[in-house]
Structure formats: structure tokens, C-alpha cells
């Protein structure tokens, strides 16, 4: 790699810069000698000053100065009148360096280091900062240093809040000042400083941010702050239970493997080979500590004294929104019988959110389990997604026996929150002709719906929300996909907002115990939401949508048939969440994009689970390591499912080789692409 002649530049430039370089090199090598020999004489220190004046980023020189200061301090003792000049000199060098390069990490760090040595005149620091911050009000080094000085000097957060007032009034688009305001206000609210209670302060903050937004609606600073305020208004710290299965007051019919005919249509019939059924708890945020100690069960069903609760999460994490325990019903005496089950939680502490807040509002729910003897073995018939559906019975329009659609714990202070949201909605209807105005209005309306408990008015906003997102998709094509996702979320919230709207999409699947089927096909959904309201669904048709992944469906522990055909699934990894759905027997992923995007499959090579040595070697891996490496994403999902029927036709990956691989991984498969394997 040796020299190739460089392009010529003007001779005089060359000469000047060469001379400069020679000088620097000699300075530098002299400095390195001092540093190496630990020489901290006046002359040596001045040399480092010179270097830093030329290049404030020279971190070796800053480090040398720290050693030099330590050296001087160790020789003079604790006399403040001797210490001060030494530290003053350091501050002077830093200030000069900052004049040269305002963004020098090394210089700012050196200043912090000097202050932490106990320099007394910290009052000057804020003055210096005021000067710097006037020159560049967005410099994040200066803001970080400001927070450091404030902490060091115990300056009050309220004074600092006033400073952000001044900065913001001076220039509404100073994002850094808005940011600092959020930091200060969070801390003041968390510590309940005098007068700083959310129900008072948050509405005040809305007023302040309105001035910025209405002065310059094109500036993002105010909008981000507004979004943060909305978050503060909507989110409640303590975790809440949002739903459960079975839900309060419901009845379920439980039976062993096989077909149980003639079940009344307003009950869920659940058949299980293992003689157990899932009890699902769905929280509004990820929690840990769900166990037989924190959730108590009063049940006539025997053999459930020490329930094991498992978090349903894709990581090996011990926190999750969804927790499941399996209740045994097979050890009951023969003959049909009803059993009452009462579940209580929140009576003893232990359920804690990942942010450290306790589940505190005690809650209990009761359901009835009808246990039936197992019926005769069923034949393994193919599930067709085209017929066999019966409309939802008009009499069972009232879904209360299956699901609770309202809020469970309304024990939070909603009043000021609703009032704040309502006044914001009114205010932002005025700005609804701009993109960000529409987006904010849509978010406010969603927040309003989330807090509404009055069934009579619940759901009134959804048409408007959907229209806003439609407008946005047309107006702002570069964020089209984002709006589309939000549109899907709003649509699913709408569907699950009342039993009337939900029952429009519900069916019974005749051939399999009158399975409860939800058909959300051909709705151009790009995201799944509201799963907490759909825990009772056993058969789900999501075909002809625009879904990329099944994330979220893992909570649907009753799901036995899933149709994802004609979507945008790009790899089996996107189906990873289904590994938690042990009940799943029928899966249709035909006509997706699996295998089409080689890039995405390759990228997993660096984090492929195959490299994890903890994984046990099974027969498939031993016999066919090549195919496992090639189709590892399919391998990891399929081997954990108990599928009887799989459809993968119409994907790039489909073909004889892949089909035979599937049959090795899932030997119990009865139907593959509509045919019995081996025929």
C-alpha cells in the first residue's frame, strides 16, 4: 500500500501547510516526551496549553493536564488560596478551547472534572453558560453541562423551569429548551414539589404549548412537547388488568379431545387433549411477579392448588402484558357438572410493572366451568375457509357471556384527564387543516375513546379518526405506511368498541364444535391491535390484508385456526409469536412473500438461534443439517407448533424440497397445501 502521487495543489499552500505540520509535529513529539516522563513543569504544562489551543479535541493533552493538576495539588496541601489559582488556570484553558471548538467533548469533560475537584466559584459557570447559550441555544454540550452545574450547586428545579420559560419565550422553536422543560417537569411532578400535581400543572402546560403551536404551526418543537403532554395525560403509572379469559360472569364448556356436539351457541366450547384450559390475564403494561402467591384461586376444580403462571413474551423475560396458567379439569369425577372459579388479584403486593409501579387496585372475577365427558374421537377433516360459517346468532348478540368490552378497573382519576383531552380536542379542531393538526386531533380522539366508560357515547369518534387517517394518507404520501398502521389500529378499536360492532364480524364454524370465529378479512389491515378484547376467539380469518407479522396474537391462547393467506409475511420469523399458541392446529400462510427477500434471511445469520449452543440437537438437525441451516426460520417456528394443517402454497419458498422438510419437522401434519402427505 505504498504512495501514489497525490494531486497537486498550489505550491504556496503546500509550503505553508507543510511548515505548519512540521511545527505541530515537533510540538507534539515534545509533548509526548513530557507525558511519558511524567514531567509537570511550568514549561511542560504550557506546551500542552498550546496544543489544546490548536486542537481542543486532543484528549491525550487533557488527560496529561489532569495528571499535572493532581501532581500540583498533591504538593501544595489543602490551602484553598493555593488550590484556586491552579483550577482557575484549567478553567481558563477550557474556556479558550471552547471558543475554538464549542463542541469539544474533551474540553467540556475537563471542565466537569475541574468542578468536581471542588472549585468553589460555581456561580460563574451559569454566567458563562448564559453567554454560550445565547450564541448557540441548541448546543447539547452546553445543556448537558448546565444540568451538571445545576445538580452540583443544588439550584432549584423551579428556577431552571423559569429559565426554560425565558428561552422558549425568546424562541418558540428552541427544541432543546422544550426538552429540558420536560425533564424538569417530570422530576417536579414525580416529587410532588409544591403545587406540582398533574391535574393542575398539565392543563397549564397545554396552555403554554398552544402559544408555540399556534404561533408557528410548522415548527415541530411544540408538537413534540404536546405529544409528551398527551402521554402524561393518558398514561397511568400503576398497571391495570384490562381483560381476562374466561371473563367475569362467563361460562365455558370444557371437554376432552374430540367433538362435543350440540353446545349452546352463546358459550365457548373448549376441547383439550391434555385436560386443561388456559386462564389468561391481560394487563395494560408489562408486569412481573404474577404467581400463585399474588393471584389466588377459589375453585371447586381439583388439582389446581399450585398454579404455574407463565409470561407470554418473545424474550426470555420475566415481564409481560399477558400471563397464562393452565387449569386442570381432567381430575374431576365423571359426568357433566358445573364448577365455579373465582380469581382474585391485587390483594397481596408483588405484581409490579417494568417501570416499578405496583398493581394496587384489588380485583376479582368469577366464571363457571361446565365439564363434560370427552366425546368420541373426531375425524381429522380439513378446515375450509370458504364455507361452514354460520352468522352470529341474533340472540347471542350480547357478548357479555364471552367477553368484557368495557373497562375493568375504573378506579383511576379520569375526570381531569377527560376534561383536559376534551378541551384539547376543541382547540385542535381549529388546526385540523394541517397535517400535524390532523394527526394530533386523531391522537386526541383516540385518547378520548380510551378513557370513555359511558357505553352510550363510546365509539362516537371512530368515524372521524378513520377519516383523519384517510386524509393524511392522501396528503402526506411519504408517511403513508405509518398512517395506514394507525388506521388499522383505530379500525380494530372501533370493531371491538361494542358488542354490536364486534358481532358483525363474528361467526360460528359449524364443523368444529361451533368454534367462535372472527373474520377480519379484506380490510387492508397492516397491524393487529385490540387483542385484549379478542381472547375468546378460536378461529381467526385475517386473509387478504397487509400484515407483516403476527406479533400480538400470542395472547390468543384459544386460537386453533388462523388464516393469514394473502398478506405480506416475509419470513417465518414474522410468525414467531405463534410459538406461544399451543392450541393452534390449522395455519394458512399461503400467498405471502416468504422466501422472496433473501436479504432479510441472511441478516439473521449474525444472530441466528442456530449459533446458540444451548439448543438441543434433535433428529431433524442431526439428519439434515443443511436444510435446517437453509430454512432455519421455518424450523424454529414449526417445530414448536402442533399443526395438523398447513398451507404455504403461493410463497417463493414453497416447493418439493421445502415441503419434504416441513414434513420432517412436523411429522404429525395431516394436511399440507390441501392434500394428505404421501398421497
Amino acid at each position, binding site marked *: *500500500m505504498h*504512495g501514489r502521487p497525490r*494531486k*497537486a*495543489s498550489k505550491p504556496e*499552500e503546500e509550503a505553508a*501547510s507543510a511548515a505548519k*505540520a512540521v511545527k505541530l509535529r515537533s510540538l*507534539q513529539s515534545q509533548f509526548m516526551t513530557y*507525558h*511519558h516522563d511524567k514531567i509537570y513543569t511550568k514549561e511542560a504544562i504550557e506546551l500542552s496549553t498550546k*496544543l489544546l489551543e490548536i*486542537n481542543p*479535541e*486532543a*484528549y*491525550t*493533552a487533557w*488527560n496529561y493536564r*489532569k495528571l499535572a493538576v493532581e501532581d500540583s495539588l498533591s504538593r501544595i496541601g489543602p490551602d484553598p488560596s493555593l488550590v484556586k489559582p491552579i483550577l482557575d488556570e484549567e478553567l481558563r484553558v477550557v474556556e479558550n478551547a471552547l471558543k475554538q471548538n464549542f*463542541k469539544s*467533548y474533551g474540553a467540556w*469533560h475537563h471542565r*466537569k472534572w475541574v468542578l468536581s475537584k471542588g472549585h468553589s466559584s460555581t456561580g460563574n459557570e451559569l454566567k458563562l453558560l448564559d453567554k454560550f447559550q445565547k450564541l448557540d441555544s*441548541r448546543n447539547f454540550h452546553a*445543556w*448537558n453541562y448546565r444540568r451538571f452545574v445545576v445538580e452540583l450547586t443544588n439550584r432549584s428545579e423551579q428556577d431552571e423551569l423559569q429559565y426554560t420559560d425565558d428561552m422558549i419565550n425568546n424562541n418558540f422553536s428552541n*427544541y*432543546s429548551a422544550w*426538552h*429540558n422543560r*420536560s*425533564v424538569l417537569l417530570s422530576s417536579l411532578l414525580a416529587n410532588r414539589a409544591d403545587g406540582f400535581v398533574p391535574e393542575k400543572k398539565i392543563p397549564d402546560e397545554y396552555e403554554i404549548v398552544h402559544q408555540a403551536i399556534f404561533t408557528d404551526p410548522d415548527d*415541530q*418543537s411544540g408538537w*413534540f*412537547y404536546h*405529544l*409528551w403532554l398527551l*402521554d402524561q395525560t393518558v398514561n397511568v403509572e400503576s398497571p391495570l388488568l384490562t381483560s381476562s379469559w374466561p371473563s367475569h360472569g362467563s361460562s365455558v364448556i370444557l371437554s376432552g379431545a374430540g367433538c362435543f356436539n350440540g353446545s349452546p351457541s352463546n358459550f365457548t366450547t373448549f376441547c383439550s387433549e391434555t385436560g386443561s384450559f388456559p386462564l389468561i390475564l391481560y394487563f395494560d*403494561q*408489562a408486569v412481573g411477579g404474577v404467581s400463585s402467591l399474588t393471584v389466588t384461586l377459589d375453585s371447586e376444580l381439583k388439582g389446581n392448588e399450585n398454579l404455574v403462571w407463565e409470561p407470554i413474551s418473545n*424474550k426470555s423475560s420475566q415481564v*409481560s*402484558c*399477558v400471563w397464562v396458567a393452565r387449569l386442570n379439569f381432567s381430575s374431576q369425577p365423571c359426568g357433566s357438572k358445573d364448577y365455579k372459579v373465582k380469581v382474585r388479584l391485587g390483594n397481596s403486593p408483588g405484581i409490579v410493572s417494568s417501570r416499578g409501579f405496583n398493581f394496587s387496585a384489588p380485583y376479582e372475577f368469577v366464571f363457571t366451568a361446565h365439564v363434560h365427558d370427552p366425546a368420541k374421537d373426531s375425524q381429522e377433516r380439513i378446515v375450509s375457509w370458504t364455507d361452514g360459517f354460520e352468522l352470529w346468532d341474533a340472540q347471542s348478540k350480547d357478548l357479555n357471556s364471552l367477553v368484557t368490552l368495557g373497562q375493568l378497573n375504573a378506579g383511576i382519576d379520569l375526570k381531569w384527564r377527560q376534561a383536559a383531552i376534551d378541551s384539547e380536542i376543541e382547540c385542535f379542531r381549529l388546526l385540523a387543516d394541517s397535517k400535524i393538526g390532523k394527526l394530533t386531533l386523531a391522537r386526541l380522539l383516540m385518547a378520548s375513546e380510551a378513557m370513555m366508560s359511558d357505553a352510550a357515547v363510546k365509539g362516537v369518534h371512530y368515524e372521524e379518526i378513520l377519516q383523519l387517517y384517510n386524509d393524511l394518507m392522501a396528503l402526506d*404520501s*411519504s408517511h403513508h405506511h405509518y398512517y395506514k*398502521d394507525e388506521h388499522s389500529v383505530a379500525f380494530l378499536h372501533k370493531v371491538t368498541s361494542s358488542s354490536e360492532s364486534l358481532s358483525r364480524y363474528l361467526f360460528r364454524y359449524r364443523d368444529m364444535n361451533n368454534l367462535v370465529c372472527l373474520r377480519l378479512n379484506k380490510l387492508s389491515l397492516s397491524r393487529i391491535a385490540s*387483542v385484549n378484547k379478542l381472547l375468546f376467539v378460536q378461529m381467526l380469518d385475517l386473509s387478504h390484508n397487509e400484515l*407483516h*407479522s403476527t*406479533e*400480538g396474537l400470542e395472547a390468543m391462547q384459544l386460537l386453533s385456526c388462523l388464516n393469514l393467506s394473502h398478506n405480506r409475511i416475509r419470513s417465518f420469523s*414474522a410468525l414467531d409469536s405463534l410459538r406461544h399458541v399451543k392450541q393452534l392446529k390449522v395455519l394458512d400462510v399461503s400467498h405471502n412473500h416468504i422466501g422472496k427477500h433473501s*436479504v432479510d434471511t*441472511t*441478516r439473521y*445469520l*449474525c444472530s441466528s438461534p442456530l449459533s446458540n449452543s444451548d439448543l438441543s440437537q434433535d433428529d431433524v438437525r442431526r439428519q439434515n443439517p443443511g436444510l435446517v441451516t437453509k430454512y432455519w426460520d421455518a424450523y424454529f417456528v414449526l417445530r414448536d407448533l402442533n399443526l395438523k394443517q398447513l398451507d404455504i402454497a403461493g410463497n417463493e419458498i414453497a416447493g418439493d424440497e421445502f415441503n419434504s422438510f416441513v414434513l420432517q419437522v412436523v411429522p404429525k401434519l395431516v394436511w399440507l397445501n390441501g392434500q394428505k402427505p404421501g398421497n
Partner: protein
Amino acid sequence: MSETAVSIDWDRSKSEEEDDDEEEEEEYSSPMQSFPGPPPPPSANFEKDRHLVYLEMMYELLPYHYQSQEINRLTLAHFIISGLHFLNAKDRVDKDVVAKWVLSFQALPSNRVSLKDGEFYGFFGSRSSQFPVDENGDFLTHNSSHLASTYCALAILKVTGHDLSTIDSELLLLSMKNLQQDDGSFMPIHIGGETDLRFVYCAAAICYMLDSWSGMDKEKAKNYILNCQSYDGGFGLIPGSESHGGATYCAIASLRLMGFIGVDLLSNDSSSSVINPSLLLNWCLQRQANDGGFQGRTNKPSDTCYAFWIGAVLKLVGGDALIDKIALRKFLLNCQSKYGGFSKFPGQLPDLYHSYYGYTAFSLLEEPSLSPLCPELGLPLLAATGI
């Protein structure tokens, strides 16, 4: 020539995630500065051959820079060599010469006992922070191994397919653990320095590349990262600081490397994740400005490198489909130099830093002539070398 500016550029090794300063990366400016005249009209294509010429010239020039005692040469070398691999031109690199050169920057203790003294034995930025062995054979009076230099050194070795098992990774990792602070952050160098997300990322990438997490306490590092998430969903460099594109990349890529977040984070219910993905997504998408480019912070001009920093975050959380790719491509092409390489802003002269992140950005956009990208490492995906 810009020779002088380059020669004392002491701290560039730390700046690779650095921010939005006009002067900041000037030092990387190429010898092309001597070409006068207005910028040529932008090409409508990714000009692979010109980039190849540009990088090759940089590659050839390395020895000259060496003479001028340029201090963060490992970082520059990483941009050149990894850049050549993005351009699928690994044949232009003499793998063995490069490996030998990189390994010569490694810091080693005089004996294993001195490990206990809290020093870090990684790689230093360049010769001028390396001290000669003195008469007693006493090596390393001041060991200035730096986390960013170490990341760059390992990146080069990894990309060129050097067998990393020849490195004493236990020594490197155990000594690196000395740099981790109680709050989970890392300082870059054992004698001290600012601690922030840049060095958490370097440490995570180092552990990942050496395939061992003995170099850090992952839980602590995770908690530090989570403390850096700001109210708008982005991440600042230290807890309480303003969201910043580079810091957000460091946060998300580290969480991914450490295994705390998976693919398709966005489709997850936001509350079940360790971070707040919906706010993060919102913040990231708002960084794409009207000109199609990405800005590092709100109300700042678009800059080539943030197409990678923010684009990679979106890729890592499964939100890359939401990028306006046509507009981004157009912006990047405006920053593509006629002579090869990319500049920070449209119409300026190219530099190595922005060129490298221009290549990564085009790779993210799935430019056919480029090697695909491993977003969490910021390196080309090369099946042969296990990346």
C-alpha cells in the same frame, strides 16, 4: 492540501457517532479539496465506480497519513476498508498487510498480573498515542487504549475475514469491564473521560464481535440505555439529555446486540417492550425532513450520515418500510460527489466519514451493487466472515 488539519486530528476516533457540527468532520476532507469550481449537477445513480476510485485513493494514501502522525487512523482505515467491502471490492485490500497493521495497534500488558490495575487492553487510535518501549523493556507508561479504536480495529479484522480467535479476547474483555461505571455506562479509556451511549455501543459491539459478554454487565448497561430515552421517544447521549440521531442508534443497536429487543419490535404491543417503540417510531419518522434527508435533531439541517443512524434504527425496529425511500435516495444523490464519496450536505466536498455512511445508507436502500448491511454493527453483511 488539508494535510495540517488531518495531522493533529487527535480525537477523531471518538467522533464516529458525532453530531451535527459543520466543522466536525471537515478533517476527513479528501485531497479533492484542491479542485476549484462549483459542484457538478447530481448524478441520478449511485456511482459505484467513482466511489471505488475514491476509496482506493484513500487506501493508497494511508501510509502518507501515517507519516503525519494522524491520530485516529484506525477509524479512517475502518471507513476505507469496510467501505471497499460495501462496494464488493475486497480484492483491492491486502488482507494480511491490513491485519498486521491493525494488530500493531494492540495494547498488551507487560504481564498478566498488571491486569488488576484497572487498565484497558484494547487498541489505541494511532502511533502518537503509543509509547515506545523504554530501556527496561517497560511497555506502556500510559496505556491509551480507546473503546472506539478497539471497535474500529475489530471491525476491520472482522470485515477482512481475519480469525478473531487469534486475539486474546479474554484479556481484552476482562480489562474492558474495568471501564464500565456503576450506572452501567462506559468510559472510553481507563484514565477517564466522558461516559455516554457511544461507548456503551462500542463495548456491546466489541463483546458481540468477540462472541463473549464477559466484558460487560448487560443488565446495568441496559438500564443505563433505558434512562437515556427522552420524552419524545428518541435517546440522548446521557440520561436527561436531548434526543439525538447518533445516540438513538447507539441505544437501539446496543439493545439489539445484547438481545433485549427482537425484530419487528414495532408490531409488538408497545407496553410489553423495554422501550417505548411507538414514540421512538414517531420521533424517527419526523427526522426525515422535507428535502428527503434525515436530520440528527429537530430543526436541524439534513445530513448524509443520519440517513444511516436513523435509517438503521428504523430497520432495527422493523419500521424501515415507513421511510420515504425515493425522497431519501434523491437527497443522498445530491450529496454524492462527482469525484466519488459523499458530503455532509448537498453540494459540498466529500469526506471519508460521510462517504462511509453514504454507502451504508445506500445499502439500507438495497442498492443492488452494494453488499447488504448488518444494521446493528454498521458493517457489510458478509456471509463468509460470519457477519
